[in-house]
Structure formats: C-alpha cells, structure tokens
C-alpha cells in the first residue's frame, strides 16, 4: 500500500518540484483514472492490468491539456500567486467531481472479476493479496523508470533546468510551456497508473479522490516538497505507519497515525525528511 501511496504522491511531487505549484485536483486525477480503468473493463473487458498503460497515456494527455488550458494562466497571476493556484486547482477539483457525478452518477462501482481480484499468494507461509503485490511491483518499476528518466535523458535534464531557471532555459531555446506541460502530463500519468491498479481493489465513486488526496499531500510533504525520492520514501513510511496504526487503533482512526507522524516530522524538520529547497 505504501508503494502505491508513493506512486500517487510522486506525481504530485513532480509537479510541485517542477514549478512550485500544488495541484489540489490531484485526487480527482486519480478518480478519473479509476473510472477509465473501470469502463475499459466494463465495456471492452480489458483487464485493469492490461489497460493500465492506456490509462496512464490518457491521463498524460489530460494533465498536459489541463496545464495548457488552466494552470499556465494561474501561474501568470501577478498578485496572490499562491492563492490563485490553490483556488484554481481547487475549483478544477470541484468541477471534475461534479462532472463525474453528472456522467457516472454517485453510485459506488467496483470491478468484480479481474485476473488479480481477491487472489492471494503465499510466500514462505505469509499470505499476501495479489493485487497489492502487483501494485507494489508496478510502483517500483515506475519509480525506477522515473528516476532513470530524470537523470539520464535530455528531456529529464531539461525538466530540471527549467525548474532551476526558466529564464535561462528560454535562452537556450527550450519552450518553458512545453516542458511544464510535459511535466504535468507525466505527473498525471503516474497517478493514472496508480489509479488503474487501485481500481481493482477499491470502490470507485466521484469523491474517491478526496480520501487519497490528503494522504498524497502528507506523503509529499513528509518526504519534502519537490523531492521525487522523498515522495517514494514518504509513501513507504505512510504505508507502514498506516499498517501499524491499524493494529493498535480502531480502523476508522488509521489515518490519524499518518497525520500525527506527519506533524511530528515537520515539527522536527520543517522541510520534510528529504527537502532541500
């Protein structure tokens, strides 16, 4: 579970680190991905595991379009830039939730039978639910891919450079908007991947994003804003803390543990565990 949190969070961390914008519609991106996965299964009988790359690709386009249509303008605000970004993405989140309710109805849906659903696997006597296990594997692969991408490719470096000094980058002939749009696309694609996997073992409904979004922010902040590795580590910590809290406290209080750990961490290290900025 922690790795999936990490996967959700890393998309957010990427967007934040890249351009200092918090996407408050991140949970809704996740919701859209889950619905996509659901409909691909319901209408075309494509198993969520197979459709995951498709969903990620669709989310990539979606994220890039959102950046070009909305966020680009929010970033240009001359006054109260922070507030404008918060409320623009917040408004977007509300619209997306509304649209989901309108088109998909507020009903809870789930994917009844998939290759992975409900199966468990036994490793050395410990029973593990298969979907979570696959989710963890996919997350690790995605992280490794992202890490290599940022550090080993030209585009990854362009991303880093744009973040550090947009003005200078413009001089070298890199279009800032294209890089940022790509960053948003990538962030959305990652959360898309997470959504596709989570569609297998979570109910899907218009507000589903909200319950994960806060955990994603906490995960990002825990690791330190803008740090991809931090988001990964933050995800694992959050997952562990959740598991431990679930043992000690009643299930409805499991998030309290996460929140408490977050508060504890930022009070000791106001910039998160791996925050450098």
């Amino acid at each position, binding site marked *: 579970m922690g790795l999936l949190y990490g996967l959700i969070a890393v998309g957010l961390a990427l967007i934040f680190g890249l351009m200092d914008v918090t996407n408050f519609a991140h949970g809704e991106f996740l919701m859209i991905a889950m619905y996509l996965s659901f409909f691909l299964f319901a209408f075309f009988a494509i198993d969520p595991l197979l459709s995951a790359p498709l969903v990620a690709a669709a989310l990539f386009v979606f994220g890039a379009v959102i950046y070009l249509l909305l966020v680009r303008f929010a970033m240009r605000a001359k*006054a109260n830039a922070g*507030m404008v970004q918060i409320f623009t993405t917040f408004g977007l989140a*509300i619209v997306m939730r509304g*649209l989901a309710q309108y088109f998909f109805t507020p009903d809870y849906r789930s994917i009844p039978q998939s290759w992975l659903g409900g199966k468990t696997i036994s490793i050395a006597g410990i029973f593990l639910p298969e979907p979570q296990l696959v989710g963890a594997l996919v997350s690790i692969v995605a992280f490794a891919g992202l890490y290599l991408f940022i550090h080993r490719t030209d585009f990854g470096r362009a991303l880093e450079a744009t973040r550090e000094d947009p003005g200078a980058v413009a001089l070298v002939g890199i279009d800032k908007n294209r890089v940022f749009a790509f960053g948003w696309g990538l962030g959305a694609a990652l959360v898309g991947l997470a959504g596709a996997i989570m569609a297998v073992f979570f109910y899907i409904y218009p507000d589903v994003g909200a319950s994960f979004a806060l955990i994603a922010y906490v995960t990002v902040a825990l690791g330190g804003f803008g740090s991809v590795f931090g988001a990964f580590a933050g995800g694992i910590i959050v997952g562990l803390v959740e598991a431990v809290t679930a043992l000690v406290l009643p299930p409805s209080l499991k998030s309290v543990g996460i929140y408490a750990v*977050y508060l504890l961490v930022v*009070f000791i290290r106001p910039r998160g565990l791996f925050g450098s900025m």
Partner: protein
Amino acid sequence: MDKNFAARRRRDLIIAAALAVIAALTPLFVKDVVVQNILILTLMYAGLSQSWNILSGYCGQISLGHALYFGLGAYTTELLFTKFGVLPWFGMLAGGVVSALIAMGLGYPFFRLRGHYFVIATIVIAEIGLLLFHNWEWAGAAMGITIPIRGDSWLKFQFARSKLPYFYFALLLACVAWFVTWWLEDSKWGFWWRAVKDNPDAAESLGVDVFNSKMGAAAVSAFLVAVGGSFYAQFVSYIDPESVMGFQFSLLMALPAVLGGIGTLWGPVLGAAILIPLTEITRFKFGGSGSGVDLIIYGTLIVLISLALPRGLMSLFSRPKKTGATR
C-alpha cells in the same frame, strides 16, 4: 494631518452601519423561509470569512483548517448544553475560549512552518479533529448530537417557529466580525500583522514581535469562528462531525475572502454576498438529485474568478493611486 485617512475610515463605518440597517430591515419584506435561510447563511459566512481573513488575509498565515474551530465551537456549546445543561450563551463563550486556546497551543509548533507546509499542517490538524470526534463515544461519535427542542426561548437560543432571531444573531455576528476587523486595522496589531505578512525579517528588525502577532491573530480568528460554530449548531439543531468539522467549512470560510479580496476590509462581505446565495441557489436548483450540476457551476466560477481577478473583486473598486512622477 491625514484627513483622507480619517475620512476613509469614517466613510467605511458609515457604509457598514447603513448596510447593517438595510440588512436588519429585509425580514420585513422577505417572508419566504428559503430566502431567509439563504440570508442567514450569507451573513454567517460573511462573519466567518471576516474572521478567517484576520489570520490568513491580514497576517498572511493561510489556514485551510478553520473547520476545526468551527466544529469546536459547535461541540463545546452542545456538549455543555446536553450533558450539563449549560445555556448556549455561555457555551458559545466557552467554545470561543477553547478554540482560541487550542489555536494558540497549535501556534507554537505551527508558526515555524512556512508556505505549503503550514497550509497542509492546518488541513491535517482539522482532519485529525474530525476523526477524533468521529470516534469519541461520549460526544456522540459518528451519530452526532441532536439538540432537544423545547419551544422558543431566547434563554436557550432556540426557535422552532420563526427564523428571525437566528437572522438577527447572524447579522450581529457579521457586524461584530467586521467591526473587530475595522478596529484592528488601525491598531498596532493590524500594522504588525500586515508587516509580518509582507516581510517577517524586516518586521522583526522594527521591533515587531512576529511570533506573538501571529498568535494574536490566530486567537482572535479562532474565537470568532468558534462563536459562528456555536451559532450554526443552534441554528441547525443537529450536529455530527462531518456537518460541523468537514473540510468544506474550511473552504467556505476562505473562499468569500479570496473572491472578494483577501486582506481587505470589505472583501469577505462582498465575497459572501455573492458566493453564498449562488452556492445555495445552485444547490437548491440542481443539487439534491445528485447530478453534480451544482458542483460544476460552482467550481467553474471559482476557477474563473481566481484567474480573472487575482486580487479579488475589491480590486475593481480601488483606484490605484500611482503618482507616476518617476519611473
């Protein structure tokens, strides 16, 4: 010296008084219960948003966790009333004090955080409060508390037949919050807050106690919001964790100020006057069926206004006075 300034403040006060009188007279003409309901909520949110504005607008500490204080106000009042028979008026005061104390207690660790870390910490703490109340059996847990109605009474601040008393209290709340802001705006605290928001280092060098001015703002802000929470509890006569401490309240307190103009005296009033009726009308017209149209309209509006008017609607009224001699 500074005639303009004194004149502007007097003008603000006169406008506010005139608006209050007009508002006080509306129930004479508006008999429709649904409309009265909207008016009450508008006034309440004007007051809440004004209070939120003190900490977040003037002092610059953006909180998206004020639902905590709203809920604490509501719960303190109702727990004291249902468990110990303490009259809501005292409960209201107690709720305000409890919230102010908690706000200051939280201030110790919180005010060291900056930017996004602070905002997320405020969301998180409100969420923790919500979860705790959800699991607190004595306080009704998820079931909440139903306030026993025993007929109209000013003493118990409950009215089944007419909404008018609630209306006047909401008006009073809005007026008090406005007046407190007006008064603080031209005081040492008001100047300190704005200085802290603009540049804490420079403020410190000018003898401003940065930490304590944040604490002061947090306490005033939390107190007023808690009073609003007590009022709301009496008004709806049933509370559960979601309905008084949910995240939507944090949002609904911030939005009017942001739309109207954050850190301005009139922003919250203007924002609430536009936003709340709109929220309620879209919900009334399109909501209920769960179609989500209300959310679509509402969200679109937020996006458009924040993109088009980053300084809020008040920026349309202020004529920027640039002398333009140099440059």
